[in-house]
């Protein structure tokens, strides 16, 4: 891959890198699980709680309609949360890790 061999194992032991990847992992997993739970709730409700899904909310519009709209809104919300967190936290931290690697301050 790269021309010169790098000591990847020692790079991976840098405290800042460990902080970056463990926080990122925790954040991603939480967000992903929350999103998925809400996503699967839609077919589960449609299949096992039809009375709930048929309940009218406004005029002719029922829970099904608003639940679907909510799924769209939730997906957008995940995108916004993730982008915000990445821009304000992960990106600066990544920059620090990269400049540390460049200065050879690892090990």
């Amino acid at each position: 891959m790269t021309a010169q061999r790098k000591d990847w194992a020692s790079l991976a032991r840098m405290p800042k890198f460990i902080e970056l990847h463990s926080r990122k992992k925790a954040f991603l997993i939480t967000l992903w699980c929350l999103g998925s739970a809400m996503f699967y709730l839609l077919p589960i409700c449609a299949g096992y709680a039809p009375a709930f899904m048929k309940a009218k909310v406004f005029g002719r519009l029922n829970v099904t309609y608003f639940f679907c709209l909510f799924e769209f809104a939730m997906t957008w919300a995940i995108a916004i949360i993730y982008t915000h967190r990445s821009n304000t936290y992960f990106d600066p931290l990544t920059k620090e890790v990269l400049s540390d690697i460049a200065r050879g301050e690892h090990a």
Partner: protein
Amino acid sequence: MKRLFIPLILCMVLCQVQFAAAADRQEVQVATSTTSSPVPLTAAVAPSVKDPVTAKPAAPLAKEMKTNKAITLSMFFAIILFTGYIVVRAAKSTRTTADYYAAGGGISGFQNGWAIAGDYLSAATFLGIAGITSVFGADGFMYAVGPFFSFVTILLVIAEPCRNAGKYTLGDILSLRSASKVVRGTAALSAVVVSTFYLLGQMVGAGKLMQLLLGIPYSASVIGVGVLMILYVTFGGMKATTWVQIIKAFLLVLSGLTITFLLLWKFGFNLFAFYDAVASSPAIQEHVRGLLKHATPQPGFDYGQRFLEPGLILKDPLDQISLGIAFALGAAGLPHIMMRFFTVPNAQAARKSVVISMVLIGAFMIMVTLIGFGAALFITPQQITAVDKGGNMAAPMIAQFVGGGAGTLGGDLFLAFVCAVAFSTIIAVVSGLILAVSAAVAHDFYVNVLKDGKPDQKEQMKIARISAFVIGTIAIALGIACEKQNIAHLVVLAFAVVASSNFPVILFALFWKRFNAGGIVTGLTVGAVFAIGVVLVSPTMTYPKKIAADAKKVVEQLEQKQASGLLSADKEVTALAKARADYAKNKDGKSLVGLDAPLFPLKNPAILSVPVGFLAAIAGTFLFGTRREEEMFDELYIRQNTGYGMADASEH
């Protein structure tokens, strides 16, 4: 070679015009011959009550859309010329493999967002979801959530790590975990298999669609779409494909917005009034009663409201969850979607592109379901299914309606515009797919497996173009061969296969230290083979005995009627003859793998095959592991998290 391009395109357009002209004459004959034939079953439930909204007379339903051929063809011509011009421009600056596969990394996040939307919003999404909504109501809206939600996985797991660690293909990422050629070979094979499923679904869909839109023969439309796609990809590579996708996404969103605007305008932008009209439409109420198989209206049952409730087509909750799993995990591993992230300069741009595509796709999906409901209201489900059983013509028909109706200049223009957009959609999606397969074959298999990465740029480019040409030709041949096959489920099957093979492998490769070549190969092969195997024994396949049993029921019902002397209408006599023939033809048949009845109860395999894929990847890791590959994890892990060493990868 480039000078040949414009004449070639001109030839093709002329061929299409020729076919259309020939088809025009045929249609007249068909139209005269069908007047005496029985009305199809779907049309038999035509509204007997006058619909106050559309004020449609209860006359026999038209079996074809009235289109203005001159306007439609010139619109197609304009689209082909315009995209052809882009391809010629892109071809001039496509010199290296980085240009060819990844547009030189020079696409901005904003542009890539539009291109992803262009790649993902296939004709199936636009015409298909509008169709499902127009025929089955709220289920269409529920269905639209799945493909959209898949972007959460793409955003959180795939986009940035792939941009940071990858180059052109999945094989590039996996080969950071294992130097084994078997790994790269398997990754290439898996990309080819999955993309072929997806491509075949699109090609056959494209052929049928062009047949409906332009009235040209099926094989001519497959060849037309196929040749255009080959030309675009071999000459323009990723740069041309990206721009075709961007333009197509823009046109698609524009037409969606216009239809939605004109529809809601009729109701003063009051959503409640709109849905109230939908639920109050006698035609829709009639249609729902037919779907529920209520012979006579049940007192107190609100059939209109039922149209806004789920469960008219998506009946089995487990099947829905299974489909949800396939969408949520499958889209993330589709080779042609993954490839889009290699066209942007860095992880920030990759992130931005996903968010932009999510805004576009989400908004478009919501509009498409509104369009579907609008089509149900104004065109009626009966008329939509009379033209096309799957409801695929709902969107073009409502476009014609909101433009002013059939025969008016506005209606014909808008219909032609929407058809041309659907056409550019097909071209853009199949081009992206061909590029993905060509990358797997030329870059992974030929250059890196067979030739150890030694060929120089010139040879690599030659191979890339040759492979795109060959694969495109094969796709055309397969598309023509599969005309009569039921391939509607192939695209969804592609999602399930990816979710059970590529997705576990990508996830483990990026996040699990112990994962190795054994796990990659086992995961990819077992996951894919198992998913395909489950589909082969699922209700998705055709079971002749079941058809025979259904036919027998019809025969018995009609014979009873005949015996009691009630059978009078011509159409019932022909229906009886048809049911008898169906029974005789199918009573001894077996499914493709020789079964009488499905072994697996669900249409979608994901709920079972995804866990199996994960287990296979884990088992493979423990059975065939080496210490050396665990060490390689650190490299990939640092690369995917930080983008370190990315310049090396793109300049390679």
